């Protein structure tokens, strides 16, 4: 499979990365090189094979559903590009 220029633009939008028009051709070439490389997986017979979900056979531990942390709003917003009264500020999203 290979991607065309429109697919590159669509994927870029899905990934929320702005791509300038003059970058599309290059990206298309690079993505197609990678897709051509992974194409060889089609020759593997995977009939009846389970997809890997965990590389280690060990069962995950469960913990009690307790609140163990909190009261650190200052620390949480400290790295925010824009914040006010412990809220993250973003451009208007609801009309």
């Amino acid at each position, binding site marked *: *499979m290979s*991607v065309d220029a429109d*697919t*590159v633009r669509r*994927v*870029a*939008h*899905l*990934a*929320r*990365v*702005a*791509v300038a028009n003059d970058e599309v051709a290059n*990206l298309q070439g*690079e*993505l197609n*090189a*990678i*897709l051509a*490389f*992974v*194409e*060889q*997986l*089609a020759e*593997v017979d*995977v009939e009846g*094979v*389970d*997809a*890997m*979900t*965990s*590389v*280690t056979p*060990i069962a*995950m*531990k469960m*913990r009690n559903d307790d609140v163990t942390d909190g009261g*650190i709003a200052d*620390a*949480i*917003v*400290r*790295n*925010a*590009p*824009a914040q006010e009264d412990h809220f*993250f500020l*973003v*451009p*208007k*999203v609801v009309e």
Partner: protein
Amino acid sequence: MTNLTALTLAQARSGLRRKDFSAVELVEAHLDAVAAARALNAFVLETPDRARDMARAADARLAKGEGAALEGLPLGIKDLFCTEGIRTTACSRILESFVPAYESTVTANLWRDGAVLLGKLNNDEFAMGSSNETSCFGPVVSPWRRRGSDVKLVPGGSSGGSAAAVAAGLCVGAVGTDTGGSIRQPAAFCGVVGMKPTYGRCSRWGIVAFASSLDQAGPFSRTVRDCAILLRSMAGHDAKDTTCVDLSVPDYERAVGASVKGMRIGIPKEYRMSGMAADIETLWQQGARWLKDAGAEMVDISLPMTKYALPAYYIVAPAEASSNLARYDGVRYGLRVGGRDIIEMYERTRAAGFGKEVRRRIMIGTYVLSAGYYDAYYLRAQKVRTLIKRDFEECFAAGIDAVLTPTTPSAAFGIGEKGRADPIEMYLNDVFTVTVNMAGLPGISVPSGLDAQGLPLGLQLIGRPFEEETLFALGAVIEQAAGMFQPQPWWC
């Protein structure tokens, strides 16, 4: 007085315990070495004040006879580990001013054991690269040069700063991460020891995530013994990472020097690739002879899925990366570039903040996870991954204790030499290491010789899950036979 930066970690540990020198003296010598080696660009942040404070505290504990396992030993930390109050960037513009409010579990374990932070080490942006050329701070220059040449070489990647800093004697050990070879490949390129432990051995909490089912932290050092010492402190259960196993941590150092007599070592025929450098083939055979001389038995094995590991990796890793990196949206932390609406803000922020390689992988990941392609790409790759793991399981079930391979298909290359036109050319660097991540196994790279141009080459040993000790024992045999390798210090 002895040259304090020439000491191995174990030697420095002994010297501190004997009070031949203080932790402050040891740390000052390394801070001087770091300052004199800025031409290598190995450190992206030096933390001399923190280092001096930690060294003084270590000296106080040593004086009281309360020194812990790594007391007073100066380390460098890959800039992928969150360090509380100390800028952590993953070497990406999108995190250029991020100061974590928390400490990664692995680094917290090191400080608990008395280690001293010298600074944060350069890496490929978000650990995506095999040459350390994708860092927003610019490439690391390898301390190694080809004989009679001053061409600047790559240290490998993504933990290029870690490998270079240890090779150049800037720290007694370092910490990195390995998703597809990011510890073992730079260790091989720089002539140092590097280990990727079994998936789940070290906590991933507080490490900037790349591909969560593959990422694992591990140590760099100049000797196998030093690597064993560091891993013991790094490893251990952590309730904050549910994939981190609750298994006791062995005293890995005791495995160094243990007998390897009777061990069965698999030599996989699929790793004999066309186009592999002749030096590497020779070295591989040499490594097998060294282990044989020590009483191990060499067994020809087959790992038929080997050739599919890299293509499967370039579906699984970008898919996980695209999900993990969705968090960089310019809202909660990191860079923000404004737009007309929130979508445009996201898109502009991420376009400005991510480098080319990261953007490429996010897009591949987004594509293979998108509607209509998930089964053909992602699901198939995860099935192939099951088969890759099965290859190893069958060998281990047949009595193989470890697998011996070259670490890389070539020695280090020049900065700017690879991957310009075709990203696959760079990806092929990880062809021998990536299988280990796909199967979740432990792997170690041990420096084993120099090529015709005088550049270091490494051999890789792959072990059964949670049997790192076997790798330390076998690695020590190779190290003993091969000797140690040090670059000429042209940078200072």
